[in-house]
Every structure is written in C-alpha cells, then in structure tokens.
C-alpha cells in the first residue's frame, strides 16, 4: 500500500471498529473508549515529540501523568481554610527551608573548589536542612491530616475551575521536566530511560504518601466538572425537549400515555449520559486538534528540522554549531508538558485522583507502544496509535474471555483446567500487547503511518 494511503485507511478502520462497539455493545461504551483514546493520543504525541523528533527515551511518562492529575486536584479543589490557618505557616516555613538548602547545596557545589571544605559544607547543609524541616514539617502535617480526615485532611487547592488546571499542568510538568532534564540529558540514551523510570517512581511515591498534599491513597474524589452533570440535564427543560424531538417517531409509536412517559424517561437518562460524554469528547478533541496543529507547525519549522538533524546525526549537527543539550532540554520539556496536560485531562474525566492507580505498565509502556506502532516521528501516527492500542487494551479482555471459552469448549463446567483458563484470561492482554510490539518492531519498524522523509 502506498504510504500516502495508509493514514486514511488506518483511521477508517479505527472508525469502523469504534462503530462496531457502538452497535454491538452500546454508544455509551464506545464514547468512553473514544474519550480515553483521545487522552492517550495526546500522551502519545508528547512522547512522540521526545522520541520521534528528539530521539529521547522518556520512561517516566507515568510520573508526568500523575503530576498532571495532582495539578488538577490542587487547582480545582476548594482550599481547606482550617488547615491553612492551623498549619499553613509550618508548611510554608519548611518549604522555604527546603528551597534554601537546595540553593545552598547548588551554590556550594558550583563555587567551592576545595574538596574537603565542599564536602563538609554539603554534609552540614543536609543535616541542618533535615533538622530544620523536620522541626516544622512533622507537627504541621500531623495537624493538617487530623482535620476532618475522612473527608479532607489535606491543604486543599485553589478552588479554580478545573479546566485551568490543564494549562497549569503543562507548566508544572514542564518545570519538573526541566529539573530532570538538567540532571539526565547529558548522559547516554539508556541512562535517560532508567533515570526517568526512577524519577517517575519517586513522583508516585510522593503523591501516594504525602497525605497533606494529595490525600495519598485515600484518594480525592468529587472533583468539579467542566461539563454539566447528568442529574441537572435530566431536570432541565431544553434537554427534555431535545430528547423528545430526536426520538419523535419512536415516541409516537407508543400506544398508551404511560408507556410513552416510561420510554421518555429511559431515553432521557440514557441520553444525558451520552450527552456528558459527548461534551467531554468535544473538549478533549479540541485540545487534541490544537496540540496536533501546533506540533505539526513546530515539526515543519526550521526548529523541527534542526531537531531531526540532531536526532539523525548528533556529531554533524554539533559541528554545525547546534547546542545539542539545549535542544534536547527544550523538546524534553515540551513533550513532558503535553503529557502533563493529558494527565490533568484524565483526572478531570475520572472526576477523582487515585494515586494507587498509577502503574508503569498502564501509563508508561502502553504509551510507548502507541508511539512505536503508530509510527514514531509522525504525529498522525501517534494519534492513530493512541486510538488503536487503547482500543485493543480495552477490548482485549472480552476477546480473551471469548478465546478462552473457545479453548475450554469441550471441558465440563467445573473442570479445573477450564477454571484456570478463564481465570487467567485477563493476562492474555499483556501477551497481546507484547506480541504486537515485537511484531511491529520486526516487520513494520517504522510503524503503521511512518514518518515522511522530506526530499528537497
């Protein structure tokens, strides 16, 4: 197949697959899959910028996603004034001590030549910093966590509309990426992978265990929404009229008035769910389009060409006077910021922040699959990868159960082998994912929608 045709064919196939889910399962399910597909695509674009344009292997996608999620909580949740009143000062002081110690450490590290003095100073700063922080931090968090622990027990957030968090998440993720990049980007490529993998674990450890900040594994639920609630819709006049008008013929066919009313009620409940999901889909899709448009612009600009030149031949680009480290840092920050946005969107969609749910397999390696199978270096490919892999990830479970049932077809109902096969069906999707990745790397290393090589 010619490479120009691949993208339209791939997206048509994807649309048909989603439509099949819509017709066979329900449109509500199909829409939920689509929403997560869009978020996955955005993450995949972020990773694609880093890997496809910059050649950087970021194995810390999960960390940036969680940062995005945390930002969503901190921006949208109402502030807990009581906690701030009683312990805000302590937290602020320990934060100041923390920042001061880090600054002092950096200063000593950079400016003092004598090794002995330097090491003594470093140790002194760490010891006194720790003592100082422990003095203020421990008591403060005890107070914060004791205030209404069942419901809040944390500092709360800014109380702004959650949609702002998408932007702020980009800034937060970008800042963290700047720090990580400063540390790791001078090293070899696989060091970057290992270091980012580790740092993302640290981020998760922090959001899981710093209850005063994120409520930890007690989760934050009931975040506000950028779209209307189902229950509001069901009570509003215009929505009822809309549903009635759309389903006019169905309702007319009803004989009695009461059955007509029952049908209408059912329809309103169903449609309100679908309407909410459509609203989300609309919002997410606009973000996706915007990010896609901007990344395409960047890719085709002189800046994008320079990045690809660096990716393809670092020495040559360096000889042409390009600052490799600075460019890598830029692309690393931009890619991570995009992942941060997606993380905030995910938490917005869920309406809750659950630190325990961040697993590297789901949030790092699956995203990598999307980029590689979709076609690294091509944003359209990443979007397709996001849709396709997420679709498989979701639909693999019912398919595996079907497959196992087929395997165990001849066996009796309570046969232990049959029970084992059905019980392990859920693990088959890991196998499918691994197999897809290996097959793609072997037979289609450039992905489904490969990078276009510009000849000019």
């Amino acid at each position: 197949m010619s490479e120009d045709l691949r993208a339209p064919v791939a997206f048509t196939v994807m649309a048909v697959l989603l439509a099949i889910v819509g017709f066979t399962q329900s449109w509500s399910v199909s829409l939920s899959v689509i929403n997560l597909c869009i978020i996955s695509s955005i993450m995949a674009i972020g990773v694609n910028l880093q890997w496809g344009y910059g050649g950087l292997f970021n194995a810390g996608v999960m960390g940036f996603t969680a940062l995005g999620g945390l930002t969503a909580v901190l921006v949208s949740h109402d502030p807990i004034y009581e906690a701030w009143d009683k312990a805000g000062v302590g937290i602020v002081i320990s934060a100041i001590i923390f920042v001061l110690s880090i600054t002092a450490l950096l200063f000593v590290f950079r400016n003092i030549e004598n090794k002995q003095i330097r090491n003594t100073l470093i140790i002194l700063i760490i010891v006194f910093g720790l003592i100082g922080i422990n003095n203020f931090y421990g008591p403060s968090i005890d107070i914060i966590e004791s205030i209404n622990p069942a419901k809040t027990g944390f500092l709360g957030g800014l109380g702004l509309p959650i949609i702002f968090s998408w932007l702020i998440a980009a800034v937060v993720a970008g800042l963290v990426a700047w720090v990580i990049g400063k540390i790791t980007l001078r090293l070899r490529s696989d060091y970057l992978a290992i270091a980012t993998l580790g740092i993302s674990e640290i981020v998760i450890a922090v959001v899981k265990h710093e209850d005063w900040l994120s409520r930890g594994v007690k989760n934050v639920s009931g975040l506000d929404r950028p779209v209307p609630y189902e229950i509001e819709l069901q009570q509003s006049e215009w929505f009822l009229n809309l549903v009635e008008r759309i389903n006019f013929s169905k309702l007319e066919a009803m004989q009695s008035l009461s059955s007509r009313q029952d049908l209408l009620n059912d329809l309103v409940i169903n449609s309100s769910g679908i309407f909410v999901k459509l609203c989300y889909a609309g919002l997410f899709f606009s973000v996706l389009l915007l990010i896609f448009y901007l990344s395409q612009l960047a890719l085709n600009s002189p800046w994008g060409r320079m990045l690809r030149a660096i990716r393809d031949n670092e020495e040559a680009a360096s000889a042409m006077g390009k600052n490799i480290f600075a460019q890598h840092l830029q692309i690393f920050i931009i890619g991570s910021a995009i992942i941060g946005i997606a993380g905030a969107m995910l938490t917005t969609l869920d309406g809750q922040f659950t630190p325990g749910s961040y697993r590297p397999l789901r949030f790092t390696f699956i995203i990598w699959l999307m980029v590689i199978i979709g076609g690294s270096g091509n944003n359209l490919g990443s979007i397709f990868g996001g849709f396709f892999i997420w679709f498989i990830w979701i639909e693999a479970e019912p398919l595996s159960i079907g497959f196992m049932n087929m395997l165990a077809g001849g066996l009796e109902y309570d046969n232990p082998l049959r029970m084992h096969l059905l019980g392990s069906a859920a693990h088959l999707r890991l196998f499918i994912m691994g197999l897809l990745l290996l097959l793609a790397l072997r037979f289609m290393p450039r992905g489904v929608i490969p990078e276009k090589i510009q000849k000019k």
Partner: protein
Amino acid sequence: MENFEFINAIVLLSNFVIVPALSYGSQLALATLSLTIIYGVLRFSNFAQADWMSFGTMATILFTWLFQSIGITAGILPTALLALPFAIIVTALFCLLIDRSVYSFYRKQKSQPIVLMIVSVGVMFILQAVVRFIIGPNDRKFFDGEKYIVHALDFKNYFGLEEGLTIKSTQLITVIVALIAMISLFYFLQKTKLGKSMRAYSNNEDLALLSGINPEKIVIVTWIISSILITTAGVLYGLDKSFKPFTYFNLLLPMFAAAIVGGIGSPIGAVIGGYVIAFSEITLTYAYKKFFVYLLPENLEPLGLMQVLSTDYKFAISFIILVIVLIVRPTGIVRGKII
C-alpha cells in the same frame, strides 16, 4: 544491666539493619550481576530482566511442588534448593528460545542499543503474561525446612540481654549461595578461556571476532550465565520473603539503580552497587530512636523517631541515590563499561 547498653545497641542494629541488609544486598547483587552481564556482552539495558527473575522463580516453585508431591525434600534445607538446577535449565532454554526468535534478528542488523531496549519491553510484556498465566498474580510462599538458625528468644535468654537477634536460615543460605555464585562467576570470567573470550568480546567486538572468537557461542553462554544468576537471585528473594510477580517487577528499579551506582557493565561494580542500594534502603528508613536510647545518657534521649526518611519511601531511596550518583559521578563507583 547497665554495662550491656552498648552491646544491646549493637545487637538491635544487627537484628534490624545489618542482617536484613546483608541478605537483601546479596540477592540484589546477584540480580544486578545478571543485568550487568547482559549489558556488557549484548550491549543493551534489559528491561525484561526482572521478569526473567519471576519466570525463573516460578519454574523453581513448580519443581518444588513436583518434588514435594512425590515426597522428595531436602530435610532442614528448603526443597527449592533441589529444584533450582532444574529451574535454571528451563529458564536458560526459554531465554535461548527468546534470543533465537527475537533478539538475534536485531543483533544481525546491528541495531542501536535503544532499539534492543524497546524490544526487551516487548519481551517483558510477554514474560509477565506467561508468568501470570501459569502461576497467577498472587503472593506465594514456597519455603519449607527449618526456619530459624538463631531465634530472638533463645538469644536473649542465652546471653541475658534485653535485645534479641534473629537469623533466619534463608538469610544464611542467601549469603552462602550468593558468595559461591559470585566467586565462581569471577573465577569463570578471569581464569577460564571462555570467560576471557567473553570479556574480550565485551571489550572490543571487532578485535574479538578477528581473533577467532565465535560470537554465537558467547551469546549463548551469556544467556546461560544470566539465567543462572537471575534464577538464583529470584529464588533466594522468594525464600526470604515471598513470590509475587508484581513485587518482582518492581525489583527492576533497584537493580538498574545498583548497576549504575556501581558502574554499569562492571561485575565488581554490580556487587558493590547491590550492597550499597540494599544498605541505604534499610539504614535510611530505620528509626534509630531505640538505638540512641541505649547509647546516650537519659537526659539526652532523642524525642523523635530519629528516622531520616519514612519507610513509605523505601522504594524511592534507590533512585534518590541513583540521581545523586548521576550528578556527582555518572560513571559509578567502579568506573564501569566493560565486563
């Protein structure tokens, strides 16, 4: 009893810090060695290594069950030690099968290390599926035999101290087996012809090929050694604690940290890195309050727990150390690179 304060403090520290760290460190050192051997000879960071560990341990558990069901046990020692050689054979064969069907293609293409690393992510998925499919995702204990060598209560009574020292038999087994494995590995690498050719191949592939070293043979030997080390490490860890695929997957991170901290590609570095990571994980999260209560006079007793980091961060410590090493000395403690 006052004169024993110092001894009490030392016993306390040994019981909660030194003994556990020594055995965890030995397990980690073996696992890191296998990662390092793969890195040094095949030149890629193998993300699937922790899942090879699960696979090897799973095979051992299956053989243990088989032996137990036909009535073979090792007396006071765990049956798993008898099962270990068989499990190693199975693991090595499966490793070689995966190498033939997956990795060898990229080796012939002379792909970049990063491509091999991504390939290993694919292998990781498949191994996780296989292990969970065969034995399930749950926690399993497969330890049998005599549990304790020194029991806290006996120790207390015997020496008349306030603090007891517990040494589990698995801890002693771990240290002994790890020592044997390390000594034989270093002997193999330094003294035998095959080991020397492996180091030569790792050092300079082209020169090694010119001097008539058969690369395929080197690759096979590398996978076999890696399987021996990783299966042993996994079994020792599982005997000491328990076997759970997800916990094993999480060991990947300390393994990488240990490899880099010690100096990636250097076997000595891997051993040092393993112990450094294990000791820091345990020493930094231990609450020293009681320790200082024994040592200091009454009016100087500490108020807090005297804990540097909460145990919640046990897991993150290896990375904090990794980050510090990356900043201060990116080549690691032993300047690594070749095996």
